[in-house]
């Protein structure tokens, strides 16, 4: 089973970024030089210096510290959204593909409805309906994301449901649920989980966008999108307040994308 795994330089870079971010998130209190919420009006709008590497914001909080603590929020949203959406989407997709007929039709039409909104519009209205908070953004994104997994899993279930090993399980008298769990799902989880790892980056990006328009994390939370949003008012005086949180988002999303791409290539060399 052991195959020599060759990772391209870009995949290695992605892996490196992701590992760094996870480390920052876990050890934030020890790594960050300052308290991310500590207001210090005497030190407001300071440009980057050796004391404040990324400068300070309009109330004198250390931007570097805020960005380091921001990794916790972004990772939490990214992982939780995928953790909620992935099983829901996978199970529905497996049921749709395996049952076929009316069940399939109903599930897939519902999926189509969710997919006929541009993601951000749907999550925006849901987050708005639930009220602005991190938890609601999380829920809104999960609601937007599950249909993608449903689609992927359904199509791979369709391709293996008539395979001979599934037929042989039926011939042995296995129940449909047993076949689904033991024969079908283990063989479809691969492509779907690659998609999930690719999605982590985009979930984080979307969450930042929602916070940016005021729907997600609320000030003074050190969420990157919310930080960008409040930086707009001091843009003229403090370029650093906008620059660094954005780079943090970009690097995080890039890291997850590179890693996801690399994983996909490992499974399907055709994609390179």
């Amino acid at each position, binding site marked *: 089973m052991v195959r020599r795994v060759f990772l391209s330089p870009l995949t290695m870079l992605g892996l490196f970024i992701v590992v760094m971010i996870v480390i920052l998130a876990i050890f934030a209190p020890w790594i960050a030089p300052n308290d991310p919420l500590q207001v210090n009006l005497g030190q407001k709008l300071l440009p980057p210096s050796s004391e404040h590497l990324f400068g300070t914001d309009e109330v004198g909080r250390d931007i570097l510290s805020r960005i380091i603590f921001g990794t916790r929020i972004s990772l939490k949203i990214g992982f939780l959204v995928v953790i909620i959406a992935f099983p829901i989407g996978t199970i529905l997709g497996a049921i749709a593909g395996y049952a076929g007929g009316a069940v399939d039709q109903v599930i897939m039409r519902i999926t189509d409805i969710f997919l006929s909104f541009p993601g951000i519009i749907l999550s925006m209205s849901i987050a708005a309906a639930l009220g602005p908070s991190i938890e609601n953004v999380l829920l809104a994104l999960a609601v937007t994301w599950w249909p993608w997994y449903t689609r992927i899993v359904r199509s791979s279930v369709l391709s293996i449901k008539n395979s001979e090993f599934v037929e042989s399980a039926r011939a*042995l*008298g296995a129940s449909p649920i047993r076949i689904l769990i033991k024969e079908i799902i283990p063989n479809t989880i691969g492509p779907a989980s690659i998609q999930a790892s690719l999605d982590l980056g985009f979930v984080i990006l979307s969450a930042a966008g929602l916070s940016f328009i005021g729907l997600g994390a609320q000030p003074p939370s050190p969420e990157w999108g919310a930080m960008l949003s409040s930086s707009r008012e001091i843009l003229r005086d403090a370029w650093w307040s906008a620059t660094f949180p954005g780079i943090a988002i970009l690097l995080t999303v890039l890291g997850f994308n590179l890693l996801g791409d690399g994983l996909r290539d490992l499974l399907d060399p055709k994609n390179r």
Partner: protein
Amino acid sequence: MSLLEVKELKQHFTIKKGFLGEKKIVKAVDGVSFKIEQGETLGIVGESGCGKSSLGRTILQLIKPTSGVIHFQGRDITHLSRKEMKDVRKEMQIVFQDPYASLNPRSTVRTILEDPLIIHGIKSRHKRMDIIEGIIDKIGIRKDQLDRYPHEFSGGQRQRIGIARALTLSPKLIIADEPVSALDVSVQSQVLNLMDALQKELNLSYIFISHDLSVVQHISDRVAVMYLGKIVEIADVDELYQNPLHPYTKALLSAVPLPDPAQMKERIILQGDLPSPVNPPSGCPFHTRCPQATPECKAEIPELREKSMDHWAACIHVQPGQKQSIRTSIS
């Protein structure tokens, strides 16, 4: 009482074509009847697309028959629920053609062999292992290979694992759907000999589905020839191979190469392709390609009749009691 008796079995698939859904019906199995006794092997031959695989799956109720009756050990199993059918499945198993596709790539051999026992409620792990070890011993897989995955085995080994899986529940009947056609010729005979040995040891019955006439001759006691969903001829193996009655059987047999070219008679080359089972020809389904076809063949569907002792054929031009003179033996 026969082990299995199939009467007028039909398997029609509906396929929708086009937006307004004009329905088309594929008659994959169209009125098939036969019996099989304990310990007997019935070979079923025919070109690909003749419905022989559908027949196997229908008997196992992997697809519900459109009509007809299947009696297994005297019991009508045609209308059993999935749960009722579960008990029957212990007695009736299948071995598939493709040893690559028929084993779950993510299960170890142990899991593959253990699963049927778990499904059928053998709770003691110890007992399950006893059964499995007894079986792998027969099929030539070592105990230390049990925790390997299917891709670590050769095609022949995998097919033997497929057979082992079918045997775990000690069935009476095994439907083997082209079990050796995906294997190298050298491996084919190994698997065939194994099946032969297992049959003698366990008193198994086989329905052996294949397009390969030599393989079928090797393993079968009786042989049925299928064409477009119907059995056109059925007889004991030697009788059928030496004295084929139906023009289609004759054509098939004439295409088999013989070891001694001098023995080979003139090849009957069939005209045209196998007609689509969606629009089968009227009358005798074979008349479009039959060298002996007459206008009556187009009008009348010939019934499968006993032309001589235990030798049935569906052709109006074959007279009862008629002995065909040409010898067509292969071995």
